[in-house]
């Protein structure tokens, strides 16, 4: 099965490279660098920090959006070409298909992660940027992009159409990034006694948070600006990503095994 999954991953990556997706990643990097240069001129003080604080989230968002769009459109095209039916008709375990696709998308996610990490490093290396913090940011971005690609794959396998799958992926990403702040809001200020309605609301938000990866703790800009990343942050990102990718893979398998040819 490993060999079959590897072949699928290889062709998934090949499709992305021939699709000029890499140029889109590069274009996003150039736009972000242009934005950074402009902001650096506008800032009154802490100029490189200001540029980096806005460039880094823009790069992260661009990477996630481009990757999710590629995963969804690629899967929809494969489905429209009856490629998925052809693959499933072969003596190939469905799990090999899901694992191969996930591995291919994870390999693809390495490209923007390395490119954007290198750009952030190059931007601030002269100002005393720490290489280890840039590496942590890059690794965390790769994990974040793997989660986005995994969720987009699950969404498109389940929903089958591009627009609903893209909307669901965007919703997942925005919710996962803001769920921490939502939890704080729903529980009210410390020292207050919440009423039954607020307790129920807080419990509901906690439940949603338990099902989502805390993306607000991933790829943090303060690692680049204040060098505050540590081994605890690294293990949280790696551990949570491993668990959640497995969860997404299992959910996608459940969905795929239920599909009739």
């Amino acid at each position, binding site marked *: 099965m490993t060999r079959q999954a590897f072949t699928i991953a290889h062709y998934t990556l090949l499709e992305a490279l021939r699709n000029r997706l890499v140029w889109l990643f590069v274009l996003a990097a150039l736009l972000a660098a242009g934005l950074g240069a402009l*902001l650096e001129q*506008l*800032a*009154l*003080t*802490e100029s490189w*920090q*200001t540029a980096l*604080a*806005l460039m*880094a*989230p823009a790069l992260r968002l661009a990477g996630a959006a481009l990757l999710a769009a590629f995963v969804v459109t690629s899967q929809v095209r494969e489905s429209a070409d009856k490629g998925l039916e052809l693959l499933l008709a072969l003596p190939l375990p469905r799990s090999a298909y899901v694992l191969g696709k996930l591995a291919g998308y994870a390999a693809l996610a390495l490209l923007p992660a390395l490119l954007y990490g290198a750009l952030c490093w190059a931007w601030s290396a002269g100002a005393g940027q720490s290489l280890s913090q840039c590496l942590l940011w890059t690794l965390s971005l790769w994990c974040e992009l793997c989660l986005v690609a995994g969720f987009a794959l699950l969404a498109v396998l389940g929903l089958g159409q591009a627009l609903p799958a893209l909307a669901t992926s965007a919703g997942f990403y*925005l919710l996962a*990034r*803001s769920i*921490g*702040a*939502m939890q*704080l*809001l729903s529980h009210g200020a410390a020292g207050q006694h919440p009423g039954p309605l607020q307790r129920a609301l807080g419990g509901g938000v906690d439940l949603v948070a338990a099902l989502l990866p805390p*993306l*607000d*703790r991933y790829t*943090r*800009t*303060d690692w680049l*600006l*204040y060098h505050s990343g540590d081994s605890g942050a690294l293990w949280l990102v790696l551990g949570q990503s491993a668990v959640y990718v497995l969860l997404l893979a299992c959910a996608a398998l459940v969905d795929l095994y239920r599909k009739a040819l």
Partner: protein
Amino acid sequence: MGARPLSAVPAGVLLAFALVLVLQLGWHAAAPPPGVRATALAPPPPLAVLQLASLGDPLALARLGMLSLQADDDQPGISLNLRQLDYGRLAGWLERLLALDPRSEYPLLAASTVYSAVDDPADQRQMLDLVYRAFGADPNRRWQALAQAALIARHRLHDLPLARSYARAIRLQATGPGVPAWARELEVFMAEDMNELDSARALIGALIASGQVTDPHELRFLATRLEQIAARQALARQPRAGH
């Protein structure tokens, strides 16, 4: 698929296209020019709302907020002077943005260097007060903004007691290794300016005795300062002795 010549398009369609194009140009010419009107700075939303809007990246929102605030006095088609800004709301925004990114010095330096340049003493005091309140939360990082505030209180507001209170706060609270000796000595100069020479001598003595000043050049500078103060005091006593 090749393109057919323009003659293949029915004359009615071409005529309609030309008419509608003329209509659009006429509409644009007849429309009034866009009005130029300054919009007031909106009140800052609660911190929790800003944290939610930041999508888990409060630092980016804080920097974006600072750049947006900085551009508020230069709106499309109109340039406002600082006096036209609502300083109450401005202080609220600066506090919120500082809360989003407490390690940034941007909001406090903007308050102490840009927004305190307004020619209204009440607005100036509001900015200096904001810097002083924020200084207490992180003195070793925020001493620069308070030192700037002390100088503004001294030279623009001509409020020596206020300037000295800021300088005293720096001496007592900003005790980290990154704070230069001159910042801790600021209170001495303020006391001298207030002609409180005994107090200035006592402060220099306290600074030396506390061990906060270790650099030989600084110690020599303070010793010279002590001598100068003693000379000034002796000069001040001479006319009284002559009577």
